[in-house]
């Protein structure tokens, strides 16, 4: 069953549990024991107090442990569609080639278009197509990372499905969550999608070269975002024109283990 609408459409990622309830074999029962009317039905009450997303959270912690053991910086990039996640990645991978080692996990419902763009930069990349699914989960990341086998002291960037709602709830095991908004969107996005901004560590405001042409107010967007998450950091940049990229690169490098010290 697909994770979006419950349809039975075939896709590569299916979340399905269809254990049908087996009817009791009455003939077999009659030979050994006849059920009597007086016998109360067996009831078992279990006090679980268990987090519904426990399995995802446990898997996410496993992923986090794997990344930590290998001194890998794992980032979860989240945004609405079209905010420039892939463009920022392409630019980052090209500009920091030789300085940092990257691998990328691309999440999209369909196509390998984004992964193809990343592959063109020379970085190892795995595409996850969720079919109808609206978010990545920790299980998918484990599979993807096993395919990449990222190097020690490297950076793994996970580009989540373009969606500011659903991915907020699913820990992937990342070290930091980076939310990207672009100035062609409304500056009240942080209030409209508070869960995503609350769970993020860094907010990148992209496409600032377009500020003269749009009504986006950067300070207002930051004020709204700080109301949701007072600890959120901000970087304003343009992935296509290059403004502000140095600050982003500094942020990245400051979080990666210095490979020279370990070699």
């Amino acid at each position, binding site marked *: *069953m*697909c*994770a*979006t*609408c*419950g349809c039975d459409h075939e896709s590569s990622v299916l*979340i*399905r*549990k*269809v*254990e*049908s*309830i*087996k009817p*009791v074999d009455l003939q077999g029962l009659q030979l050994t024991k006849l059920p009597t009317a007086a016998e109360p*039905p*067996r*009831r*078992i*009450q*279990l*006090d*679980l*107090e*268990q*987090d*519904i*997303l*426990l*399995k*995802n959270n446990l898997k996410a912690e496993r992923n986090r442990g794997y990344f930590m053991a290998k001194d890998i910086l794992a980032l979860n990039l989240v945004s609405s569609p079209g905010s420039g996640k892939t463009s920022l990645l392409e630019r980052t991978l090209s500009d920091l080639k030789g300085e940092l080692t990257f691998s990328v996990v691309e999440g999209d419902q369909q196509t390998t278009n984004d992964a193809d763009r990343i592959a063109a930069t020379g970085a190892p990349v795995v595409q996850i197509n969720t079919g109808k*699914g*609206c*978010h990545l*989960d920790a299980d998918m990341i484990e599979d993807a990372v096993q395919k990449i086998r990222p190097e020690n002291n490297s950076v793994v960037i996970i580009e989540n499905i373009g969606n500011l*709602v*659903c991915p*907020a*709830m*699913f820990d992937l095991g990342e070290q930091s969550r980076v939310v990207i908004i672009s100035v062609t969107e409304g500056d009240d996005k*942080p*209030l409209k999608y*508070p*869960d995503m901004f*609350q769970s993020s560590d860094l907010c990148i405001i992209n496409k600032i070269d377009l500020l003269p042409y749009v009504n986006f107010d950067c300070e207002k967007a930051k004020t*709204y975002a*700080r*109301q*949701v998450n*007072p600890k959120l950091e901000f970087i304003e940049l343009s992935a296509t024109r290059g403004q502000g990229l140095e600050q982003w690169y500094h942020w990245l490098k400051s979080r990666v283990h210095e490979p020279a010290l370990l070699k």
Partner: protein
Amino acid sequence: MHELSIVMSIVDTATEKVQEHHATSVESIDLVIGALAGVDDHALEFSWEAGVRDTVLQHARRNIIRMPGKAKCSNCDAEFEIKEIFDPCPACGDHLIQVIQGKELQIKSITLN
């Protein structure tokens, strides 16, 4: 609509418990859902109908215990109810608040038969 993923996680846990205890199905299930947990009631209802079909939860009675949002101000220690995570402290107006209740997303208990 991540609510279907949530329902499928509940189905997974319920199926596991039914197998563990050699039961046949779930009679009732109590869920705790916080007001700030990011779960939409209508989406959950829709996903539930689709997600539990042909599973041990198909005929289960579902009871949802709702927890209102509560926060504590990191500035003045006031405790108060919140509707949104960006609500400021009513005592001092600060946004530096810690959510102390309302993020719950839990299977509280389950009755098998």
